């Protein structure tokens, strides 16, 4: 009973950020920056507190509860409620979202202070926190929903926030429209995924008669036996949704462009939380995927292929955030592959640790960018503060940032005993035992991960400064570096969550996901992965720490030739999509709009009118003014009448 009351707190994880954003909407501009930032951070922080309380309560009642709030849609047999689900899985997600979220909020107080000034519109400071709180609310809806439809609300809601935040500086970017184009691209790519998810939901309702998780999953086995094709369709359509949101092949293309958003956004939305929603969805729906091995293998291959593919591109990027973006895609590929292999806990584990170290890396990258911006001379437009080719040697000017960055990079590369090592290792171990093909691909991806992180570390922090701005970079303030340090700590210690042998997370989640046999810790796998990581880092160090001429030319360019050009140009996927999808779509729409709509359909009415008018002009000729014509017409009429009468 007591914990029942505690569980009733769950709507507040949504309400608190909503209250925060409402306060900021109404008063934010009046009371200034620190007010807005504090309110927003407090709202998210309180949501974190609620999540912690829920987690504690859940420790005693791990079976979880559903907390209904109100009816939403009720038509005939269709009943959808606003109902929250408190179970071990959802609370883990809540903790990650609100925890990392709070840190990023705090970081943003400092970061955005500079950012709005750098971009020349101080009035937009409050708006940022409104959007950020809105995002937290939507993300909380997503993870705490008790049914697919409510989850979909969050699912699209975070998509909207992503859109708004990518386009936060909507008047900036390439040609002034680059950022807004990127935002639009993100939303539409996500909508394509949402299309899949919608179809999956329709199939679910038609076959299961409900959207509620419990009701649906409990019937999964029976339906699978009855209609295996339907289950395959559901899982694959759902996968389409996942590829959109979690930036997998083939819909990942929006995520690199999404880096147009302010860096905290990249950290929060495009690394730590939103993009993992797809992984969460598949974990939540593990009951489905378990039953459809074909779908599982599709999922794991999509994940693995994405992991490797994105890693190759990350190797050849120069933009500090783009590297991290492709890295994110790659790591998400790891998680998806894990879920595909049935290693849901490993996937979740990696999701959590990734939230720590990738959040950290992005935030630290933001610190670097602003450091470089501070180093730029007034009126210096030649320097791109995100271009690693114009950095170098920053570790001296920004020691704190350097150290946390190093920790994040090592964690990402999978260096023991940092968080990434354990989580990635669990995925690799799962692959090792069952899917050797996947293992090879993922191991390769892991190696490249270490390599590009090594490359990035060297290019940004070591060697000599390659620009005046880099030389003049200064360290960020405490409000920025403090969250970095906390996240660094988490990146170091995150592995403890699910240490081999203890499997804390595994035991925690099994209340929701059912008993999942934990992958055995395989020393050989651990060894291989560690060696690969060290090899990658080392190789990166070796290649990039050599003296480099000015302007910077990537040493790999010569070595790899066209291969590198491909990686550098992201394998021309954007160009391919433009040629195969976008331009044909535009042309087709144009064809419909002009030749078809204006040319044909619009002319039906006009054509009929013109035809009638032509007929009128023709008939009019009969009325030629001559009496004898009229007389003749009369005679013809008479003859016709008499003829008819005589014939009948």
């Amino acid at each position, binding site marked *: 009973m007591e914990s029942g009351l505690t569980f009733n707190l769950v709507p507040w994880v949504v309400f608190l950020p909503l209250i925060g954003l409402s306060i900021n909407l109404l008063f934010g501009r009046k009371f200034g920056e620190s007010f807005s930032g504090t309110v927003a951070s407090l709202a998210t922080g309180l949501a974190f507190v609620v999540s912690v309380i829920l987690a504690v309560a859940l420790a005693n009642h791990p079976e979880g509860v559903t907390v209904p709030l109100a009816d939403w849609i009720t038509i005939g047999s269709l009943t959808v409620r606003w109902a929250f689900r408190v179970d071990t899985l959802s609370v883990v997600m809540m903790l990650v979202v609100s925890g990392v979220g709070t840190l990023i909020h705090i970081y943003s107080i400092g970061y955005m202070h500079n950012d709005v000034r750098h971009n020349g519109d101080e009035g937009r400071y409050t708006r940022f926190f409104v959007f950020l709180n809105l995002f937290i609310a939507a993300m909380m809806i997503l993870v705490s929903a008790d049914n697919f439809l409510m989850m979909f609300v969050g699912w699209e809601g975070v998509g909207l926030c992503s859109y708004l935040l990518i386009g936060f500086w909507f008047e900036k970017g390439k040609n002034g429209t680059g950022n807004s184009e990127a935002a639009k691209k993100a939303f539409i790519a996500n909508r394509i995924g949402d299309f899949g998810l919608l179809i999956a939901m329709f199939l679910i309702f038609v076959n299961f008669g409900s959207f509620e998780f419990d009701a649906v999953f409990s019937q999964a086995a029976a339906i699978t036996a009855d209609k295996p094709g339907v289950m395959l369709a559901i899982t694959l359509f759902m996968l389409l949704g996942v590829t959109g949101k979690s930036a997998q092949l083939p819909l990942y293309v929006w995520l690199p462009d999404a880096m147009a958003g302010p860096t905290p956004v990249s950290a929060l939305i495009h690394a730590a939380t939103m993009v993992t929603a797809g992984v969460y969805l598949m974990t939540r729906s593990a009951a489905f995927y378990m039953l459809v091995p074909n779908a599982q293998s599709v999922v794991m291959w999509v994940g693995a292929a994405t992991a490797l593919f994105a890693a190759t591109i990350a190797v050849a990027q120069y933009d500090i955030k783009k590297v991290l973006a492709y890295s994110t895609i790659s790591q998400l590929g790891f998680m998806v592959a894990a879920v595909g292999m049935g290693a849901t806990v490993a996937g979740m584990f990696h999701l959590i640790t990734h939230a720590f170290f990738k959040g950290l890396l992005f935030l630290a990258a933001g610190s670097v960018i602003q450091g470089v911006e501070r180093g730029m001379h007034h009126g210096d437009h030649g320097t791109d503060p995100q271009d690693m080719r114009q950095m170098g040697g920053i570790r001296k000017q920004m020691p704190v940032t350097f150290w946390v960055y190093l920790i994040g990079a090592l964690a990402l590369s999978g260096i023991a005993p940092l968080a990434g090592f354990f989580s990635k290792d669990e995925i690799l171990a799962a692959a090792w035992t069952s899917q050797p093909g996947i293992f090879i691909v993922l191991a390769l991806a892991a190696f490249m991960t270490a390599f590009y992180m090594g490359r990035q570390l060297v290019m940004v922090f070591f060697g000599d400064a390659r620009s005046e701005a880099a030389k003049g970079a200064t360290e960020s303030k405490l409000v920025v570096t403090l969250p970095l340090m906390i996240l660094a700590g988490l990146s170091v210690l995150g592995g403890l969550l699910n240490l081999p042998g203890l499997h804390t997370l595994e035991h925690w989640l099994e209340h929701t996901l059912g008993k999942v046999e934990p992958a055995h810790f395989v020393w050989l796998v651990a060894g291989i992965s560690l060696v690969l990581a060290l090899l990658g880092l080392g190789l990166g160090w070796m290649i990039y720490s050599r003296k480099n001429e000015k302007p910077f030319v990537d040493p790999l360019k010569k070595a790899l030739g066209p291969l590198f050009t491909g990686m550098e140009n992201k394998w021309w996927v954007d160009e391919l999509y433009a040629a195969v999808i976008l331009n044909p779509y535009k042309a087709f729409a144009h064809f419909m709009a002009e030749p078809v709509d204006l040319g044909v359909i619009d002319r039906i009415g006009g054509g009929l009118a013109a035809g*009638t008018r032509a007929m009128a002009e023709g*008939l009019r000729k009969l009325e030629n003014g001559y009496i004898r014509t009229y007389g003749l017409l009369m005679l013809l009429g008479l003859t016709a009448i008499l003829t008819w009468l005589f014939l009948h």
Partner: protein
Amino acid sequence: MTLNDFYSILPAVILIFSALVLLLADLWLSKHTKVVTPMLAVLGLIASIAASILFTGNVENGFGGFILVDGFSRFLVPLFAVTGIFAIGMAYDYLTRMGIQRGEYYSLLLFSVSGMMLMASAGDLVIIFLSLELLSIPLYILSGFAAPKAHSEESALKYFLLGTFASGFFLFGAAFLFGAAATTNLNGIVEAVTSGSANSTFLIIGSGLLLAGFSFKVAAVPFHGWTPDVYHGAPAPVSAFMSVGAKAAGFAVLIRVFSLIFPSLAEQYTPIFWGLAALTMLVGNVVAIAQINLKRMLAYSSIAHAGYILMAFVPFGDAAIRANSVASALFYLAGYALGSLGAWAVVIGMEKEDNQGTEINDLAGLGKRSPLMAAAMTVFMLSFTGIPLTLGFWGKFYLFRTAIEGGFISLAVIGLLTSLVSAFYYLRVVVKMYFQEGDSKFHWNFWTAAVAVFSALVIVVLSFIPGSLFDLAVKALLTGS
């Protein structure tokens, strides 16, 4: 001659008498007192309405069946008289402006109206012929009333020659009917036809020629050729009068003769009426699109409306529908009459002394300059189109209902589609008046305006209470049917 015989033709007699009085009186009136002539004429018309209402109540026929008095004639006789009053109301100022203010106009008009009245109650081919000529000959003269204006003369000549040509058809047909039935009395002809004693060849020749003659009067295609030219060339009030009175009279006699003869020949005649109606609706409406002159447009519109009225007549062969058939034709006629008179009144106000100003383009900006007239004109156009809250809508409603009731759905659909076509040119008038700027001018005259406004009001007001008019039309049954 009994009193009943006298009563049966009293309305017409009053008019003829008034006409004669007018001719005399006009001689004595000075230029400044000319206004008395139209007033006298109106008085005569009012008296004739009164006579028709007061004295024909229990009269059934007169002169041994030469004159038939029934609901049908009781409906039409006042309609003709009202048409006459309107034609006078809108003419006075026009004639003055055109410099053709002569007393003969009014007496000729009265003669013509009396012919129409006789036509509506004619029970014998002789009476039909006489009334046909009585209504036509004054109209020939009236068409040329604006002589020496070339248009007026041309229209008079065309009307005269073609009208006589049609009379020839009628006469030849009447002769053969006489040959078929050995009588010129309509009821006698009916008896002969139903008893089978009539010679069928003669009957066919006779009735076919008769139909051709009447079709000319109602301006059914292909007997319509004269209509646009005559309406265009004749003085506008005369055209207005013709477009309503002459057409109504044509329908009166067409309905009367064929409703009597028709039932036994339904099989042969139904397709003919079908074809006539369809052709008339189509040609009238389609060619109207191409018109730039308002008068010609109204002429084609009047042709088209003749087609609609003919449609009501198509299912006449079906005894169950007969009452609705006549009633819907009459109802439509009444609605059309009001619309047409009103629209012509507006045209009359628009026409300048040099006969210009009657193109559709000349209406541009009327909505701003004469909002009242523009509003009235809009009502007429909407009524012609058959848009609800006008009498025209109920007319079409009833008409199509009759056609569908008779099973002529395809004909009804032709009617509906052509009324869509008609919307095209009626709307153009509205477009010109309201949506385009221009310096159009309505020559304000109280009586002309009154005709338009009154017609518009009646059209709208009656559309809310069409029941009584429906009842009146339904009661307008023909004797013997």
